[in-house]
């Protein structure tokens, strides 16, 4: 019941013009933003509905894909090219939400969804630096079972909730942006910021900047890719740990190319660069996989209740890589 205006953007230029007004927020499927407005955690003065803008999935000459930001998650997961060339993405989306949510949620909105940290949601009873900058954080010393073990700061350990983004991080997706200053492209792995002292600033987006598309580069070996989400229930739950992986092995049994990203463990979709570096050129064996996972988790800093995620992440990474080698490792 906090008043706000609503307008459907006629086109991208119209959206950006409206979106740069003070207090304006872009509205995609509304599956997260509308919830947060009901909880009065988000209080936009104006909603600019961009769900009617570009929603095409276009094949590019180099074998990549360009996915319009307004494309519904269901459309991406069901797209035949996605399913054949980037199965990790289709599986992550299906693991991410119920069909009803997937039917509404847009690709752009998924990138910008906010944490489900219970302290962030508890506006009446808890302190949260993300919701009220400088207020303090009740999660760090509180019930931290779902919180981050990598990339957190003393001011925030909330995890990024998206499954889709974990797959996009592994695939090296590039985010296309349009703002008042023109167009630019940002790698997905650089879109989200780590919290440091300003957890309220979650992305590198400029005020009013609009996500127009997500580009998937050609990545032939991603045809062999997988997503595994480990959670308390097999449906309707966020990841405790998730792993997106693509693997290419040579005829000599060594790892030629690998992509790895983690969900549920960090404030952003976590590309496992260290593990990838540790694996390239190594034998595609369980020992190598475990060593790579150890390397990635070396800097893990668990809180009171989430220490199990360190071992869970290592085991899940090892298991997914094992699955991609046909379980022979």
């Amino acid at each position: 019941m906090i008043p706000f205006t609503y307008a459907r953007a006629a086109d991208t230029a119209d959206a950006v013009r409206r979106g740069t007004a003070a207090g304006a927020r872009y509205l995609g499927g509304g599956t997260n933003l509308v919830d947060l407005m009901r909880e009065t955690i988000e209080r936009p003065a104006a909603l600019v509905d961009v769900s009617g803008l570009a929603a095409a999935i276009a094949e590019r000459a180099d074998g990549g894909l360009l996915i319009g930001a307004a494309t519904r998650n269901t459309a991406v997961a069901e797209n035949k090219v996605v399913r054949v060339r980037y199965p990790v993405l289709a599986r992550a989306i299906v693991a991410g939400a119920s069909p009803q949510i997937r039917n509404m949620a847009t690709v752009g909105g998924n990138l910008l969804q906010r944490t489900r940290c219970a302290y962030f949601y508890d506006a009446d009873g808890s302190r949260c630096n993300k919701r009220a900058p400088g207020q303090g954080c009740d999660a760090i010393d509180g019930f931290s079972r779902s919180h981050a073990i990598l990339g957190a700061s003393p001011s925030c350990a909330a995890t990024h909730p998206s499954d889709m983004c974990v797959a996009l991080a592994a695939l090296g997706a590039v985010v296309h942006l349009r703002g008042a200053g023109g167009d630019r492209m940002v790698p997905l792995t650089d879109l989200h910021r780590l919290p440091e002292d300003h957890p309220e600033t979650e992305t590198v987006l400029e005020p009013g900047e609009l996500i127009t598309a997500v580009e998937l580069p050609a990545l032939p070996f991603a045809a062999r890719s997988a997503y595994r989400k480990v959670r308390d229930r097999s449906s309707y739950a966020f990841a405790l740990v998730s792993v997106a992986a693509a693997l290419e092995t040579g005829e000599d049994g060594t790892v030629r190319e690998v992509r790895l990203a983690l969900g549920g463990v960090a404030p952003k979709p976590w590309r496992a660069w260290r593990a990838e570096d540790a694996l390239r050129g190594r034998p595609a064996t369980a020992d190598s996989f475990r060593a790579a996972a150890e390397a990635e988790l070396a800097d893990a800093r668990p809180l009171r209740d989430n220490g199990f995620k360190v071992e869970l992440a290592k085991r899940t990474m090892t298991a997914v890589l094992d699955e991609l080698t046909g379980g022979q490792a």
Partner: protein
Amino acid sequence: MTTGRHQGSAAVAIGPESWGPGSRPDPVATRKHGPVGAQVSRIDGPLKVRGTARFAAEVPMEGMAYAALAYSTIPKGRIATLDTSAAESAPGVVLVMTHRNAPRMNQPPGFLTAAKAASGDDLPVMQDDRVHWNGQPVALVLAHTHEQAQHAASLIQATYEATPAVTSFEQARENGVEQAAFAGEPLSFQAGDAEAALAAAPYQVDLMFRTPRHNHNAMELHAVTLAWDGDELVVHDCTQGVQHVAWSLAEIFGIREEQVHVSAPYVGGGFGGKGLWQFQILAAAAARLAQCPVRIVLSREGVYRTIGGRAPTEQRVAIGAQADGRFDALIHTGTVVKTRHNALAEPFITATRCLYAAGSMKLGIQAAYLDMLSNTFMRAPGEAVGSFALESAIDELAERIGMDPIELRIRNEPDNDPTSGLPFSSRHLIEAYRAGAERFEWNQREPRPGVRREGMGMGTATAQAQIAAERLGLPLDQVTFTYGESSLPGAVLAGGSQQTASSGAAVVAAHRELVAEILKLAGDGSPLAGLGRDEAGAVDGGLCDLSDPQRWESYASILTGAERDEVSAEAAAPMGARGIGEIGITGVGAAVANAVYNATGTRVRDLPITLDKLL
């Protein structure tokens, strides 16, 4: 009430003496062809499907206002300041009620303290500035719409003078415990010297178990629509106990029981959580103050903040046994937390009182006190969490003795109720164990943990599709098998093969029903005319006469002839009629924990069983 045989029995006699042991069977109950047991449509089914069954939140009343609550954010103390000005001037607001202007009301009669006492606690409702739990309503807003009320409630600003509160189990126990009671009876029982017998027994287990708080989560949010007509109060409620709520509201408002008219024809899930709580009392108070009908529908948050759930427990189960399995000692003791303002201590020894014979027995529950929302009944109160501890311990003992856990239970089957000595009115536990063991292929169980590797998941769907395809005479790709995830835990009871067997039995039974339905549709001119369901077989996408397979007609042809495009049947493994809601939760925790142990070698004695405990 669903869980409320205790509460129900307080208001209504349990039953005629002829229901007791040794009495003659009721001739109607033994009649085989009456309406009971026949396949009938739910009488209220069409109303519910069409949305015309009116639940408490749907009954219209002229001039009605909508209520919303603001809740305390500290567990104990006093309200220091309460600024309602923004709420009062918000759009559509009719009334803001706080302890400053609420009508004077009597203390609610706490559940279990009188025959028809229904209130979750006996705390005064919005009568002073004291706060007793985090989430206690501190203000109520009435407005022309639900949304206006919610918004205005969010504008109420409260500050508090907090006093130290006890909010953890450990803290509560350190402050001291007291003997717990249930409906006035102490929750304790002793026969012989169980500790000495335990110490002397050749086989022993002595284990601690913990169970967490459980919140009520009925699909229908708690709601009430009510109005005053002079001194008469008309209440459209979602309660499980209409008479209890009527009597209790009469006590609170100082009127006669007959002046309160409570109806609750449809309850969208109760499970013990739909009694009398502050929302009904506050709605009636606001209706009196504003002189208009009032509706309140709690948000899910509101349910968590103001409707009690099952209290946490900490239980010790110790059993001393002989090599032949016979129990020398059975000890089940422990601590529950509750508030000073409610009468229910979670009675986790209720199942232990009647399950096993033992040479000596010691049962007892102590209560520790928290500053929290009062706890209450939840499905299978006592038994649900008590059986988790007891039956987990028995499995651990069975392993220690090296005896099959079913056999161990059978060896300790009592002749009479072991604590009262009275004969059982009805007891079929051994039969049930044996029947279950047979269906689960229990004898093929691998008792060593962590050995059996086969899983479920896609294997189940495929196996069931295979069974269905074979039965239906269809290629596999024309069969879709779907199964609810919530049904999966049942399969854990006895390891990997049980689900296939039990679901398969249901598929086979359903197929038999389906053949009968299809034969009914086959016309007089059909080659199948006159066949009984056991004389017909499925082949090549149709049915044939088993004794003459040339007599065949396709499903498509039969359905076309009958001008139908689908035919359906359903079946489950046949069972006797029993209230299964509570049975479905009693013992299940232990069964799952025991199966998890069998699968992984890890014993979890601290619920919930989450994956981190298995790493």
